[in-house]
């Protein structure tokens, strides 16, 4: 297998050359500890400051409100546990949705075991929450609303501005996981009533293992990692200097190139969606038709199972992902596909292809061509397809 067509940009991205170039000096030359007072400790400290400014600028925040973490998941954990435990005296109720990332859902479940109450909002068939349901869910015990900006599986974009308004009106903190939003839609925190927002570098052509979090000034939150005085005493641990530098660069590139990035991936995304819809029967596009991550394609192919589809694609060099239970090794297919109302049978046959900056037009042709053959081959093998063929 020589061809490699990567269509899993929502899982992770390759690091851009500009990002790596900027990181390189901090591994073995400018390796000083940013907390030290000698010159080249200060060098490292300055590099972190630059990165912080860049990330702040990318999302319309002030640098003082940006902190670096060891990844997007750590930031989700920090946001939710940090707010929950710091505001326990005010209430023990949290509102989230059924389609959050596991880094949000599993934290909520953990908190439920520790005396918190969590409302999991429904979503409609496109993955949208209902603002009325949200309003009704808020009680005088509610301390936090946590609703993601852009869904990682089906790409649906939530009405963050409206949610923020509701939260603000009711005096409830609002956290949004913006890991899939950064670099894919414009973000301007100044325009939003968001109290906490988090990001991950490896989703925007930056390094793995580095995340960021915006914490609005004045928000009552506990630290999550206690220890040294790094990150203005809010996140302990020797800073991952090269990683942070890389994240800063990636954030800068992402905003500079945002328009062209969106135009590029959207065009290929629409081509891929059409290619599939025009050539393959019994498919269903998951997610919202318009309020959607510009590079997200998510289909269910009836009568076949996602893992076999992925393996077959892998054999011709195409990398995608699936919400099928067989892939994850768990009993149920993706909670997101369940929440938008798919039956188990159909959810098993899901395929997510996510497009990025290095995707080329001819890649899409290649993928559609192979998908047609592969889906047909797997359906010929499927006992579920037998009844259907005749009627066609």
């Amino acid at each position, binding site marked *: 297998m020589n061809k490699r067509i990567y269509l899993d940009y929502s899982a992770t991205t390759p690091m851009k050359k500009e990002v790596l170039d900027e990181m390189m000096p901090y591994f073995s030359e400018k390796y000083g500890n940013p907390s030290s007072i000698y010159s080249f400790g200060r060098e490292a400290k300055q590099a972190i400051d630059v990165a912080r400014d860049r990330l702040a600028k990318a999302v319309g925040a002030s640098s003082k409100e940006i902190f670096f973490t060891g990844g997007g998941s750590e930031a989700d954990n920090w946001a939710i546990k940090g707010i929950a435990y710091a505001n326990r005296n005010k209430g023990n109720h949290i509102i989230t949705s059924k389609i959050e990332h596991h880094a949000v859902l599993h934290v909520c479940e953990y908190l439920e075991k520790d005396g918190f109450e969590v409302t999991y909002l429904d979503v409609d068939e496109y993955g949208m929450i209902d603002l009325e349901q949200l309003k009704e869910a808020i009680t005088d015990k509610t301390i936090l609303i946590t609703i993601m900006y852009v869904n990682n599986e089906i790409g649906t974009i939530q009405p963050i501005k409206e949610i923020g308004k509701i939260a603000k009106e009711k005096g409830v903190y609002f956290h949004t996981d913006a890991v899939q939003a950064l670099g894919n839609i414009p973000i301007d925190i100044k325009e939003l009533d968001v109290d906490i927002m988090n990001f991950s570098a490896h989703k925007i052509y930056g390094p793995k293992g580095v995340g960021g979090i915006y914490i609005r000034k004045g928000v009552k939150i506990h630290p999550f990692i206690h220890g040294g005085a790094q990150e203005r005493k809010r996140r302990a641990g020797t800073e991952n200097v090269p990683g942070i530098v890389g994240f800063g660069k990636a954030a800068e590139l992402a905003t500079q190139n945002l328009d062209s990035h969106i135009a590029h991936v959207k065009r290929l995304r629409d081509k891929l969606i059409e290619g599939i819809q025009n050539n393959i029967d019994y498919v269903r596009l998951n997610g919202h038709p318009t309020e959607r991550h510009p590079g997200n394609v998510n289909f269910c192919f009836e009568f076949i199972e996602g893992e*076999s589809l992925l*393996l077959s694609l892998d054999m011709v060099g195409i990398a995608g992902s699936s919400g099928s239970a067989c892939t994850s090794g768990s009993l149920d297919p993706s909670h997101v596909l369940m929440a938008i109302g798919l039956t188990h*049978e159909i959810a098993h046959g899901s395929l997510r292809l996510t497009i990025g900056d290095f995707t080329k037009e001819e890649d899409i042709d290649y993928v559609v061509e192979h998908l047609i053959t592969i889906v047909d081959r797997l359906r010929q093998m*499927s*006992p579920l397809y037998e009844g259907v063929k005749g009627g066609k």
Partner: protein
Amino acid sequence: MYSEKVMDHFTNPRNVGEIENADGVGQVGNAKCGDIMKMYLKIEDDTIVDVKFKTFGCGSAIATSSIATEMIIGKSVEEAVGLTNRAVVEALDGLPTQKIHCSVLAEQAVKAAIYDYAQKNNLVIKGLENYKPVDDVHDHHDHDEDEE
């Protein structure tokens, strides 16, 4: 993740299809759980002369079905009843732990088809005396390490 043998049987599955007027047909699993296997047997003089399968499932579900058909063609009905999921796994040079249940499905599909043959012909087959058709082998689906 998968051995070469698994990938071979997944990519070039043997004996895919249906047998018209099969002597025994068995189906196990259910679509809800993401796996269904259907086996068709042609039996002459107590010997399995042809097998075909259809499978809705993951890569290892398809591979285990494929190799199971190869393992029972030419065997006596009694021998085929003795096919174990472990033998299937071994023949495939192993499966990841979370995929062992797919091989159980293959074993069950063969048994279900032979059971159907026995029912149709009023036979009692050694090894199948206490057999009850099941379509749920999902206890095996959950295999993850405990979170403590």
